[in-house]
Each structure stands twice: as C-alpha cells, then as structure tokens.
C-alpha cells in the first residue's frame, strides 16, 4: 500500500503531470466560476484533449478540472448571488449576504480553504478505501455487475429533484441508447437504420458533450440578462486560516458527510451541500444568523461539496459504477485510455491509478492560490458577454466531438443529443439517469448476456441465481429501497405543495 502510494506520488509529481494538473485547475476554476458552465461540461469538453497524453497526465488534468470547478462555483455564488455550479446553490444563502456586508474576502477565503480541506480528506479516503474495496470486486460475477448497474440507475433516478418515474424513464432511455449498434454476442445490428457510423454504437463522449454543452448554450442565449452588481473581492486570504481552524469540528463533519454522499452512486454535490448545511445549522449556537451571513453556512456547503469529489471516484475506480454524472464521464475517459475499472486497474497499472489519486492532492492544494487570484479578477470574468461565450462553447463542443472518431457524423449526433438534452430540461426530465444508463448500458447488457449463458440459457435458473446469491439479494434490496425512497419523496413533496397552495 505504502509502496503503491509512493509510486503514485512520484507519478503525480512528474513535470507533465503537474503542468496538466495546473492547467486543469485553472480551467476548472474558470468553468466553475462562470454561471452556465458546469463541471460535467468542462470535463466532457476536455476529454478529447487528453487523447495524445500520458494517461496519468490526462487523468490528472481532468481531476484538476473536477476539483477546481466544484469549488469555482462559490466565487460567483458569493459575488453575484448566482451559483456557478448547482452545488454552489447552498453557498449563495449565506455567501452573498456576507459579501453585501463587505466580507466578500472572508466568505471566499473560507469557501476556498474549506473546499481544499474537504477535497484532501476525501482523497485520503479514496487512497485508503479504494484498494481494499477493489478486492471485493473479485467477488462480483456477471450477475452482480448487472444488478450493480441497475442499482446505480435506480439510485440516481430516486435522488433526482423531479419525479422518480421520470428519472427511471430517463435511465431506461439511456440504456436503450447504449443498445444502438452491434449485439455484444451475436453481432446483430440494432437501431442503426443502416448507418455505418452507428455500428459501434453512440459514442459516449459525443453524447455527453451534446447533453451538457448545447442545452447550457441555448439556456444562456434565452436568458441574456446583464450581470450587474458584481461585488469585488477584497481581503487577504490567509488571515482567515485561523478562523477556519476554529471551526475544525464542523469542517471534519462536513468532510465526512460529503465523502459518504460521494460514495453513494447517484447522490451528488448539491445533496451533500444541503445535508452539511442543515447539520451546521442544527449544531450551531447562532442559528438565527443562517440565511443572513453565517460563515458556518459557507464553510459547511463548500467543504462537503468538494469532499464529494474523492468519494464519487471510489465506486468508479473499484466497481466501475460512477458516483455521479461527472464520474460517469471519468469512466468514459478511462475506457478511452483502455483502462477498465476494478481490481485489475489497481493491480496492473498502479502508477496510473495511484498517480491519478495523488494528483488530486496536488489539485486540491493548487486551486487555493489559483482560486484567490481568479476571485480577485472575477468581476471581469463574470462580465463576459453571453454573445461571445455561447458560440465559443459551441466551437469547443464541435472540436471535442470530432476528435473522438474524426467523423463529421459525430457532429450531427452531438447536435441531436443536444436537442434531446434541451427537450429533457424543457420537460423537467433529469439528464443524469440517462447519462448513467448510456454509460452502464453496454456493461449491463453484456453482463446480463453472460449471466444468462452461465445459467445454461435458462430464465428460471437465471432468476433463481439472482434471488439466491447473497450479494445479488443485497443489491436488489437496495434498488427496491431507493425506488421506494424516491416515490416517498415525490409523494411528500406533492403533499407539501398542496398545503402551501
């Protein structure tokens, strides 16, 4: 373990890795800071850039973008009262009032330092929990992997803000999209319409770029309100470090909350931020300050949402199940590099996986100075006109989509996926389950086919295996529980809506 960690540190501190981590962090803070750009979009757009790179350096860059963009949303949340990323919604509650009182420096410093600590904590957990958990993956066979993929989709569908039925429909559509192309066993072409470029299926990265970039561009142009009243960040950052230390117990609790939420497939940064905020309010001696500029509100939200980052990579690297939409894209990045998550990843390529994990430590440290510098000039960045930003994002989406297979048809596919993503937003259908369905679909069908073959082509034996194997029973119970929780949540929110009306 120590030996592998040292290999990882050595790989992460290579010149190329450090430069790529730094570039990823800068890009991530800018992406997170600009409302309308999300971590998912940033990582999806930058995957093609990593093609020609060393795998460790490429993953380090994407990890830098992930960490930094999760934090970067706090800057516009505090200065503009508009969250740069969905997870920064909670930060606006107390961050903006603090900025209005002239304490923008204090708020941003606490957000930055808290994010750093939360991110480092979860990366430690990733480093020490992932390898033993990867060994558990050896107990998994085709039956367990199939049910695990269904569990991921049911959890993410249940946790979505919209109805669980819509979430399950989105997940099913995602699974359907993964069916396009050749059958993994028989080679029969399905849903290709005779089009050669669909023989290998819908490319994951093209679909992700379409789902996440184009709808944001179309939303941006539809809501072209001027961003007036950007507050300027003032203050010296490090003088607030002692104040953060005085809240050490809160920081620790929020780091744990964020890490655990990150490990649960489907639960994202926004859920972690809400849970941590509620906990901070519950435990606070000055509850009346919350909502009016309580610094604990900012610390709790930002610490926990960055702690999700490391946690979300635990199920991804060990079992191949993404913890959230961003880690789903990481799965795509790993597969493109020819790396398959699981025990073999840790066993056969320790320099890559441990190098990637150690580069996350570097990223969490680097975004502190980068974040402070960018926050100081954020008021200029946040005034970037949408009329320049929107077409620029489209151009990067075109480059990213073309780079996968050098295929013009992929650009049209990206445009169609963008329309699908936009219509899903219009009809309030969550996109994350569809993404997960697309990512896990190929694996789930392949594993189901293998499980069926192992059951001597008997449906009865297959079902009997599902309901007699201990791990399968646990996974079925968890899926049923998550669907029930989602239905209960929908029913409760319907009742609450009727009561307020």
């Amino acid at each position, binding site marked *: 373990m120590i030996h592998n960690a040292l290999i990882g540190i050595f790989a992460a501190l290579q010149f190329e890795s450090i430069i790529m981590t730094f570039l990823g962090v800068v890009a991530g803070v800018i992406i997170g800071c600009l409302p309308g750009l999300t971590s998912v979009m940033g990582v999806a757009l930058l995957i*093609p*850039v990593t*093609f*020609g790179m060393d795998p460790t350096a490429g993953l380090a860059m994407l990890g830098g973008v992930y960490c930094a963009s999760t934090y970067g949303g706090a800057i516009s949340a505090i200065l503009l009262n508009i969250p740069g990323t*969905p997870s920064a919604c909670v930060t606006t509650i107390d961050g903006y009032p603090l900025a209005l009182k002239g304490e923008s420096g204090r708020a941003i410093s606490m957000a930055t330092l808290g994010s750093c600590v939360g991110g480092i904590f979860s990366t430690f957990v990733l480093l020490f929990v992932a390898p033993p958990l990867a060994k558990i993956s050896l107990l998994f066979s085709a039956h367990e992997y199939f049910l695990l993929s269904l569990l991921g989709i049911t959890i993410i569908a249940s946790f979505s803000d919209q*109805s669980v*039925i*819509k979430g*399950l*429909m989105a997940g*099913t*559509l995602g*699974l*359907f999209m993964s*069916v396009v192309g050749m*059958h993994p*066993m*028989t080679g*029969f072409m*399905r*849903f290709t319409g005779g089009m050669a470029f669909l023989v290998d299926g819908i490319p994951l990265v093209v679909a992700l770029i379409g789902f996440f970039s*184009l*709808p944001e*561009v*179309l*939303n941006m*142009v*539809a809501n*072209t309100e001027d961003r007036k009243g950007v507050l300027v960040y003032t203050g010296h950052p490090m003088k607030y470090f002692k104040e953060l230390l005085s809240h050490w117990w809160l920081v620790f609790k929020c780091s744990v909350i964020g890490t655990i939420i990150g490990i649960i497939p489907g639960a994202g940064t926004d859920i972690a931020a809400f849970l941590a905020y509620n906990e901070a309010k519950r435990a606070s001696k000055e509850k009346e300050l919350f909502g009016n500029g309580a610094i604990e509100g900012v610390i709790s939200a930002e610490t926990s949402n960055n702690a999700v980052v490391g946690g979300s990579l635990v199920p991804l690297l060990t079992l191949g199940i993404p913890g959230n939409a961003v880690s789903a894209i990481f799965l795509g990045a790993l597969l493109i590099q020819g790396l398959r998550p699981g025990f073999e990843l840790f066993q056969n390529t320790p320099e890559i996986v441990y190098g990637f994990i150690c580069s996350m430590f570097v990223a969490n440290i680097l975004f502190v100075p980068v974040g402070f510098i960018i926050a100081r000039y954020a008021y200029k960045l946040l005034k970037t*006109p*949408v*009329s*320049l930003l*929107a*077409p*620029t994002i*489209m*151009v990067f989406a*075109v*480059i990213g989509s*073309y*780079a996968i297979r*050098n295929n*013009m048809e992929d*650009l*049209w596919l990206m*445009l169609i996926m*963008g*329309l699908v993503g*936009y219509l899903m*937003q*219009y*009809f*309030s*259908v969550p996109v994350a389950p569809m993404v997960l369905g697309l990512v896990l679909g190929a694996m789930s*069908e392949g594993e*189901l*086919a293998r499980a*069926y073959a192992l059951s001597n082509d008997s449906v009865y034996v297959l079902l009997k295996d599902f309901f007699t194997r201990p791990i399968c029973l646990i996974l079925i119970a968890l899926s049923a529980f998550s669907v029930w929780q989602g239905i209960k949540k929908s029913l409760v929110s319907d009742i609450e809506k009727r009561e307020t*009306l």
Partner: protein
Amino acid sequence: MNNDSTLKKEISFVLIMLILALCLAWFSFSYPLSSSVYPRALSVFLVILSFCQFGIVYFKRSKHKNEKNQNSQIRDFAASFISKKSITIYVLSGIYLFGINTLGFYISTYIYIAFISFYLGYKNKIAMFIWPIILCSLIWCVFSWFLHVPTPEGIFF
C-alpha cells in the same frame, strides 16, 4: 409559470413518451429473439413507466380542475420555455456544421462566431471581428500544433 401550462407540458411529455416507447417496442420485437432480449425488456419497462406517468398526469389533471390557478414564482435553473433565440441559435449551429464541410473549419468558425455575436447584440464591432481570429489561432496552436488533436476538415481552410 402557472399550473395550466405545466400540466399541458406534462401531457405532451407523456404522449411523446408513449409513442416513443411503443415505436421502440415495435422495433425491438421485430429483431431476432437472441439479439433483442434486452431491448425488448427495456421497451416493455418503458411502456409500463409511460402508462404510470400517464396515470399520474391524469390524476393531477382531475385535481387541477378543482383548484385555482396559482402563479409560481420559483426560479428554475433549467429552461422553462423554448425561446425564439434558442431555436435560431440551434438552426445556425446546424448551418455551421454544413459550412464546416464546404468552407472548412476555420472559415466557418470565424463566420459563425462573428454572426452569432452580432445576432445576440454584442455592441463592440471591433472585438466582434477580432475575437474569432484570436480564438481560431488559439485553437490551431493548442489543438492542431501542440496536442495534434485533429479538427474537422472541409474543402477550404
């Protein structure tokens, strides 16, 4: 957005999903059994979910007839309406992709960015024409020259 328009959207969504689910089921069942077990199961599941959603919307519609209209002031993070600008940008993006094939990536990118900025009301005319040149140069340097990531090719540059 009031409850009436939300309900209409829900009804449209359910109808679209029902039609889509039935079409997918029809295609799935037309493939040989050995290659279509998974899509058949998915299509059946999707049809069931569509009917469940139809039931929920029908129930909400009956409830809504007995309730007053309330205007919701809740700000949505996602698109709450499809705007003319969004549709125009989408169509222009499609034309941009056509342009890449003929004019080439860099020429069509320059025209696309300049035109979209103009359409969206960007006032600084000089920056509107200089920014696309800067961006195209950056793209060439970073992607083509440094990273050797290919960009789309057309007849011209």
